[in-house]
C-alpha cells in the first residue's frame, strides 16, 4: 500500500502540467471556442510531440501502456487549463472502447490514427438504439466534439460499433453549446451500416470506466485551478484598506473549496487505482469519483465567480470557462444523482 505518486507518475504530472500551462493559454482556447471547440495545433502537439496520448492504452494495441492513474494525471492537467481538446471522446472513450473490445484489425485500423491525432473520434450512446443486423438507427443529442469527429464509436446498452462520420445514413448537426470548449453535436443514425466491435461488453465497460475517471480528473484539475486563481486574487485585491483574503467570510469559503478538493483528489486516484488493480471496489470508486469531483468543481467554479466579484462575471475573465465546463461535467455521463443511485443500489438493493 503506497497511496502516493511514484517518481515516474510525478514526472508525467510535471510534464503534463508544464505543457498545458504553457500552451493551453486563454487566448488560444478562446480562438478554439469561436470555431469548433478544438485547438487543433495543440491537439497535434499533444499527440505527436509530447508522446502522452497513448497512455492508458495497452502496448500490444499500439498504446504506451500504463493505466488510468496516468490517464487521470494528464486529464487533471488539461482540466486545470480548460484545454479545448477532444481528449475525453477520442482518447478516453473511443480509443479505450476499441482497445478493450475491438478486433486486432480494428485496433490496427483506428488506434494509431486516434493516438497520433490524425483522426478524431466521437462517442455516441443511445440506449434505445435499434440494430437491424449492423444497420443502426438511433440518435445521441449530446456528442462531445461530435461535429469535429471523423469517426464514431456507437454504443447501445449491449452493442458497440464503429462508423465513419461520412458514412451513408449518418447526420451530424453542430449545436451552440454553453461550454464552447466542448461543443455538442446531434448525431442521428438512420439505417447506417456500422462495423461491430468484437467484444461489445468489454468496450462499453472500458469506455465507461475511463470516461468516469477522466471526467473526474478533469474536474479535479479545474477545481484546483479555480481555487488557485481565486487565492491569487484574494492576495491582490484591496477593499476597506485590506486585502480581501483577510476577511474571514472570504477565507472560510476558500477553506471549504480546499476541503472538497482534497476529497476529490482522493476520489479520483482511488478510482483510477482501483480500476488499474482490478479491485472489488472499482465500481463503487468510479461512481464516487465522477459524482463527487464534478460537484466539487461546480462548487469551486461558482465560488470563483462570487469571490472575484464583478470581474468574475465578465466574458473577458476566465472564470466562466471553468464554471461552464464544471456544469457540463456534472451532466455528462450520468448526473450525480444517477451515480449515487448506482451506489445506493449496491448498498441497499434496487429502488422499490
Amino acid at each position: 500500500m503506497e497511496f502516493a505518486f511514484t517518481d515516474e507518475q510525478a514526472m508525467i504530472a510535471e510534464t503534463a502540467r508544464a505543457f498545458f500551462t504553457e500552451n493551453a493559454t486563454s487566448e488560444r482556447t478562446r480562438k478554439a471556442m469561436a470555431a469548433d471547440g478544438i485547438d487543433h495545433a495543440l491537439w497535434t502537439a499533444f499527440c505527436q510531440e509530447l508522446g502522452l496520448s497513448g497512455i492508458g492504452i495497452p502496448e500490444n494495441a499500439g498504446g504506451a501502456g500504463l493505466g488510468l492513474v496516468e490517464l487521470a494525471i494528464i486529464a487533471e492537467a488539461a482540466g486545470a487549463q480548460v484545454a479545448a481538446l477532444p481528449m475525453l471522446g477520442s482518447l478516453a472513450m473511443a480509443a479505450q472502447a476499441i482497445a478493450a473490445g475491438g478486433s486486432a484489425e480494428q485496433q490496427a485500423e483506428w488506434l494509431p490514427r486516434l493516438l497520433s491525432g490524425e483522426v478524431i473520434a466521437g462517442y455516441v450512446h443511445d440506449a434505445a438504439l435499434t440494430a437491424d443486423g449492423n444497420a443502426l438507427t438511433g440518435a445521441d443529442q449530446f456528442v462531445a466534439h461530435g461535429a469535429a469527429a471523423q469517426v464514431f464509436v456507437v454504443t447501445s446498452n449491449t452493442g458497440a460499433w464503429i462508423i465513419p462520420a461520412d458514412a451513408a445514413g449518418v447526420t451530424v448537426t453542430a449545436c451552440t453549446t454553453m461550454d464552447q470548449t466542448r461543443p455538442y453535436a446531434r448525431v442521428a443514425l438512420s439505417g447506417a451500416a456500422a462495423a461491430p466491435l468484437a467484444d461489445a461488453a468489454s468496450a462499453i465497460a472500458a469506455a465507461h470506466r475511463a470516461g468516469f475517471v477522466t471526467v473526474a480528473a478533469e474536474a479535479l484539475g479545474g477545481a484546483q485551478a479555480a481555487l488557485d486563481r481565486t487565492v491569487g486574487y484574494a492576495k491582490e485585491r484591496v477593499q476597506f484598506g485590506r486585502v480581501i483574503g483577510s476577511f474571514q467570510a472570504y477565507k472560510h469559503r476558500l477553506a471549504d473549496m480546499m476541503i472538497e478538493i482534497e476529497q476529490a483528489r482522493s476520489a479520483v486516484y482511488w478510482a483510477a487505482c482501483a480500476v488499474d488493480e482490478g479491485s472489488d471496489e472499482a465500481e463503487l470508486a468510479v461512481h464516487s469519483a465522477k459524482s463527487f469531483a464534478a460537484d466539487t468543481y461546480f462548487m469551486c467554479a461558482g465560488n470563483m465567480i462570487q469571490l472575484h466579484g464583478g470581474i468574475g462575471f465578465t466574458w473577458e475573465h476566465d472564470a466562466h470557462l471553468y464554471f461552464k465546463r464544471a456544469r457540463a461535467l456534472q451532466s455528462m455521463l450520468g448526473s450525480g444523482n444517477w451515480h449515487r443511485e448506482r451506489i445506493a443500489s449496491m448498498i441497499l438493493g434496487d429502488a422499490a
Partner: protein
Amino acid sequence: MKLGFSRADELFRAECADWLNGQMAGEFRDIKGITKLTASPERRKEWEQQLAAHKWSCIGWPEEWGGRNASLAHQVIFAEEYARAGVPGRVNHIGIELAGPTILAFGTDAQKQRFLPDIAAGKTIFCQGFSEPGAGSDLASVRTKARLEVVSGQEEWIVNGQKIWTSLAHISDWIFVVSRSEEGSKGPKGLTFLMMEIDQPGIEIRGITQINGDAEFNETFFTDARCPADSLIGAPGEGWKIAMGLLAFERGVSTLGQQMGFRNELDEIIAAAKANGAASDPLIRQRIAKAEIGLNLMRYGALRMLSQTDHSKIDGAALTYKIQWASWRRALGELAMDVLGQAGEVADGAEYEWDTLPNLFLYSRADTIYGGTNQIQRNLIAERGLGMPREPRGDV
C-alpha cells in the same frame, strides 16, 4: 501508486483479526460492542493489560519500550481490525497515542524509564490537560500557573488553576498539564508541560454531564497541586512547542481505526433503513450513498496522509482531515435520525440512555467543536494551507 496490501500484510491482518475475535468471543466478550467511552471502566483497564500481555498495546512503539516497531501498514491494519472486531475504544488512548510518543520525542532517559513501561503495560492511564474555561479555541491563552519551589530540600512544581474538557480524567492516573510558568508571559510563550499524578489532595475532578446524559468530560481543579521538578517535559517555557508536537501525533494511524467505528455506525443505519422501509426513499438513498462516498474518501485521504513522505510541505489531506470527518459524522447523526424517525427519540428504558444511533446524533455535535472547532479549522486551512493573512488578535 498502489492500494492493495501485500500478502505479508494480509497475513498480519488475519493474525490481528484472529486474536481480537478470539478475545471478544472469550474472556472479554462482556465488553464487545461497547461504544460509550465511560462504560465498564474497570474491565476496560483489564483489557488494556490484556493487550499489553500479548504485545498488542502499542505496536508502533519501539521494541525496547514494549512495542513491536510495527510498520505504518501494520499499524493501519491493526487499527482497522481492532474496530472491525467490535472491540471498545482504548481507555488509554491518550497514554498510548499522545503521552507516550511525546515522552519518546521530548523526554529524558529517566522519564522514559519512569513512564513508558507502565503506559505500555496498561497500568498508567493518562488524560490531557489543555483546555481551560478561558482557553478554548484560543488554546494559548492558558492561565493555570506553575511555579518551582523548594519543599523540604526538594524542588517541586506547584500548580494552581483549572482545566476543563479533560476526557476520562475520573478514571485516569496521570494528567499532562500545560501551565504558565513565566509570570506576565502571554500567548504561547512562557508555558510549561508537566506530568502530574492525579491522586493527590491538590487535584479535584468534577464530571460534566453532556447533552447525551453521559459524563465523559470533566473539570479538573488544581489547588497547590504538586509534582517533582523532574516531571517537566522539555525545558520551562517550551510547553507550547511540546503541546503542538503532541497534537501532530493525534492525526496519525488512529484515524483509520476511528473510521472503522464510523463504518459500524453507517452499517447500522443501513440495516435500520432496510428494516423500516426508509431504504426505498430516494432522498434517503442519496444521503446514504453520500455517506458511503464520504467514508471512503476519508479512508483514502488518511492513506494519502500516511503515504506522504515529504513532510516539508504542508499536506492538504492532513490539514483538511479534522473538519472533513467531523462534518461527515455530524451529517451521519442527522441521517440516522431521519432514518429512524420518532422511534429514535424514545429510549429503551427509564434511564436517559441512548442506543448507538441516537447517541451518535447527540454526541456528534461535539465532533465539530473539540480538537479545534470547524470555524477554527477553516481559519487554519486558509492561513496555513492557502497563505491567507492571519486573523488579527484583539486585546480585550
